[in-house]
């Protein structure tokens, strides 16, 4: 039961992007098409689950004072594995994501989970936590990249949605569009939260 809670908290109540504002750089940079977004989400989830489990196994061995460098080395190892695997098996996606694959190392979501969760918890909860957070991150990437691709390019997963008369909103696939999309989404989530609290206080 508690495992289910660890899993589901990452998706909505503690969503790394919308609730904690972590891991924003890759989110803004690679969300111009849905396939890029999903690719990035899967890569980050893989690294998060692997690093969470190793860090959880080593939590009693690693001295408190040098834990951050140790975490970074563990994360960097898995990022290198992901990097080489993607270069070998998905060269197109790898070329489109560019330097944002190696930059998963400094994604604050991953180091944040190591510090806040897997460094203190057993193996199974850590894996489940990694899966939940990774899924929450992928979901956020999916929402943002879907909005940007549909508005900015008139397509979804590369499939044209509108007729030839549709004028794409070019700004949405530029970095400026990424900033605005995430700004409005964060505002929307705040609004939902406020409304819930207002209802509670009214009762």
């Amino acid at each position: 039961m508690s495992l289910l809670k660890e899993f589901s908290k990452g998706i909505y109540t503690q969503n790394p992007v919308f609730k904690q504002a972590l891991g924003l750089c890759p989110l803004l940079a690679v969300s111009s098409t849905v396939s890029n977004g999903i690719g990035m989400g899967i890569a980050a989830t893989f690294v998060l689950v692997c690093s969470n489990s190793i860090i959880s196994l080593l939590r009693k061995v690693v001295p408190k004072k040098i834990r951050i460098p140790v975490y970074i080395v563990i994360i960097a190892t898995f990022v290198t594995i992901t990097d080489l695997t993607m270069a070998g098996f998905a060269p197109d996606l790898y070329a489109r994501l560019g330097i944002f694959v190696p930059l998963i190392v400094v994604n604050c979501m991953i180091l944040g989970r190591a510090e806040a969760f897997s460094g203190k918890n057993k193996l199974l909860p850590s894996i489940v936590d990694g899966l939940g957070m990774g899924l929450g991150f992928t979901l956020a990437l999916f929402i943002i990249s879907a909005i940007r691709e549909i508005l900015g390019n008139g397509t979804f997963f590369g499939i044209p949605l509108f007729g030839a008369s549709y004028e794409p909103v070019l700004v949405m696939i530029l970095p400026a569009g990424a900033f605005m999309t995430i700004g409005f989404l964060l505002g929307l989530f705040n609004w939902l939260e406020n409304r819930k609290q207002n209802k509670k206080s009214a009762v």
Partner: protein
Amino acid sequence: MELRVLLIIAVSAIFLNNFVFSRVLGICPYIGVSGQMDSAIGMGMAVTFVLTLASIVAWLVYTFFLAPTTANLFYHLFALEKPPDLTFLNTIVFILVIATLVQFVEMVIQKTSPSLYKSLGIYLPLITTNCAVLGVALLNVAAGYRFIESIVHGFTAGIGFTIALVLMAGIREKLELKDIPQSMRGTPIAFIMAGLIALAFLGFSGLKLM
């Protein structure tokens, strides 16, 4: 000729490929620290300093230990038949070098200049996980910059980041007094402002540098 190349690198790093608005690197500290002008300037200076240092150190490490050229020290040290290609270690080595460097710089500043430490010190630990720093090292390698070019790129990228931070801080200080819908206050409106500034910066892409 050389100076011209450096100038092109500088202008493009500050305006055309601004780290925040065009390459979208270093967003977490950008949104986090741009609330006040003082902290924005402090953070900007710290980032510029670390970006320059990281470019220098990453270039040295890459050229003498990782790259498959005859300059590689392992090639001479172990008398290998051909230069070893260790570039697959880039990510791990760079992040370790940067983390160590930041820690070291923090200690040196703390010992030598307490006043500088007071203004920059609190920002330095934050910078280790700033993706702009690892990003500049990786971008230098990807672009194949030589030593001086790497330094110029690192330094001007830092200047570009500082300009972005200061612009944003100026706007956000004014926004404090404005009547913004409750749910949009703070981070959401900051992102929308960043989007608008990014649009303005898009105008620089018309510059012909070559």
